[in-house]
């Protein structure tokens, strides 16, 4: 893989605020043209990492490059080529949609800002609301506007910080369709999210917690690398069973999913002993299952907490 195929490369990125390490020795790599999901609980360092990548925060140590530009020394090139969508809506509430887009087009020095803004309006279906003030828009429309502003200068890389937080399911689906069509045209996207269904729409994901990267790769890779054996348990009295299983050595994760209980362990042999021990003669049904991405993440988090 040559350097030109890499959109984001970070090595040992570290950032502290007030003595607390928010991002700790983070190493990651994103290939061009991919949609890379960035997952992790609140306060895990996702936003801080994204801000370091687009030059808004200076790392304490480590190095990184976006589109081949050094994040410490070439911020102005990065700003020109990278679209960053902030977690909180950060366009001008007292400007209309059109005025906001024209402002962005002018700042990026587009040849015909007015036309560029109009094209962006059409592409994202915002033309009917063009004269509406941005501050009066609902969450979904604000997000659309923010995305339109991000892609207006035709960046090569999009950094999206929780773009779908507080957006309804329909708008979320439209948003992801748009992201996929952009990626199909060669754009690289790094998108942070809380939602598992969104993670599954990504080509690759990175999972961080406490500022540390816990897993990275395609979903299949992450699931298989986790080495988890999983059983799906159905039947009565699952809550009592869950409590007993949690206290059992060899069970690394117990989590309820709807009417079922997911039970996972790293030692497959030990887990099948447990299956016999708890399953024989009991009213519940034990079936061997594939671990889901969520199982893996819950397991990762449980381990992290146990180590602390």
């Amino acid at each position: 893989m040559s350097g030109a195929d890499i959109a984001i490369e970070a090595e040992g990125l570290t950032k502290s605020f007030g003595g607390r390490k928010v991002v700790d020795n983070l190493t990651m790599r994103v290939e061009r043209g991919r949609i890379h999901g960035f997952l992790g609980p609140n306060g895990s360092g996702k936003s801080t990492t994204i801000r370091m990548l687009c030059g808004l925060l200076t790392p304490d140590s480590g190095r990184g490059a976006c589109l081949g530009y050094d994040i410490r020394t070439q911020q102005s090139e990065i700003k020109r080529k990278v679209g960053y969508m902030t977690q909180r809506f950060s366009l001008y509430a007292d400007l209309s949609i059109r005025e906001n887009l024209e402002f962005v087009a002018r700042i990026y020095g587009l040849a015909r800002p007015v036309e560029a803004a109009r094209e962006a309006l059409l592409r994202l279906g915002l033309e009917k609301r063009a004269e509406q003030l941005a501050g009066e828009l609902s969450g979904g429309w604000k997000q659309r506007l923010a995305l339109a502003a991000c892609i207006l200068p035709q960046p090569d890389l999009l950094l999206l910080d929780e773009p779908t937080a507080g957006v309804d399911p329909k708008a979320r689906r439209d948003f992801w369709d748009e992201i996929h069509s952009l990626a199909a045209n060669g754009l690289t996207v790094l998108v942070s999210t809380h939602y598992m269904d969104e993670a599954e729409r990504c080509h690759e994901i990175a999972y961080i917690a406490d500022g540390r990267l816990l897993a990275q790769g395609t979903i299949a890779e992450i699931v298989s690398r986790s080495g988890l054996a999983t059983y799906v348990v159905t039947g009565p009295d699952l809550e009592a069973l869950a409590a007993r299983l949690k206290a059992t050595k060899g069970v690394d994760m117990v989590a309820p999913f709807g009417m079922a209980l997911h039970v996972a362990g790293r030692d497959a042999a030990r887990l099948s002993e447990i299956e016999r021990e708890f399953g024989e003669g009991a009213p519940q049904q034990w079936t061997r299952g594939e671990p889901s991405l969520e199982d893996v993440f819950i397991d990762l988090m449980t381990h992290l907490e146990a180590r602390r």
Partner: protein
Amino acid sequence: MILARQARASLARIHAMFVKELIQLRRDRVTLAMIVGIPLIQLLLFGFAINADPKHLATALLVQDDGPLARSFVAALRATDYFDIITAAADEKDAEGLILSNRVQFVIEIPPDFGRRVIRGEKPPLLIVADATDPTATGGAVSAVTAAASSALDRELTGPLARLAPAPAPFEVRVHRRYNPAGETRRNIVPGLIGTILTMTMLIYTALSVTREIERGTMEALLAMPVRPTEIMLGKIAPYVAVGGVQMGIILLVATTLFGVPIVGSLLVLGPLTLLFITANLSVGYTFSTIAINQLQAIQMTFFFFLPNMLLSGFFFPFRGMPLWAQYFGEALPLTHYLRIVRSVMLKGSSFGELAADSLALGVFTIVAMAVAVMRFRQTLD
């Protein structure tokens, strides 16, 4: 070639900021109204209200001699227009009470046998008790008393009493009160008001501009865009230079039509120098904006800067009356230089050449303030 292209791109970004600020200003109806309202109201209020040479001051009379000399003296005092005799005090204790209760500014006491003692050549005292807590309020009146007294007595001391009249001085003193012969406060205060009003409005406009972006969360998006601190600053300052120009126009119009303050010099001198002064204040405000964490802090800094400008620039009190260190301090304030410029151009007709030092000071001040602002501007969220 490359340089020219970069300059064009930079101008385009300044233009983008300029248009954005202008739209935001246009949407802010209250601010729009205040652009016109503040200078108009303040000019009318202060222009009419402030008078450094007050007349018709409340006076009490304590007369213990009702002879022709005393009566003539009281009449002369009345004729100065400084004294409105509103009451008579019965005795000294009563007179003291009138002053303590702020009912009168002056008590004029004519001692018993005043007339007879003058004629005997005893030089009896004429006592004028002034409430001099505010020296400006009493200064003019007190200096008018001596002249009034001698002219009153001159008229009375005729015939055999003429020997008592003071001899005229062997020379004549001529004073030319140029540029403001009648000593009207307005001619001094109204041009000064142009400076103070512009200082206040300009400081506030830009003092809030960066902190507002931070507080509204728009700074993060702005910083992620390829726009430089200098471009943000110039784009944010430019619309308010125009606003300052409009305010200047309003004030000048009112000053000349309503207050009758002349513009002896050229508007072509006053205009550009006023724009320079406006830019100086906008730069200071913008600098505060880059230092302050929030809008409240920015406002506090603005007032911290505004007060010395008001008090040490020569607006309220004579600049040359201050101790030397205070004068040096005053030289560092833009209003000091602008007051000299605006008063000189409007009242004396000074030209660019005569105002070169003050213009240069304003220019240097502006550049320093802008440099500090650009250096202080935080380009990251660290």
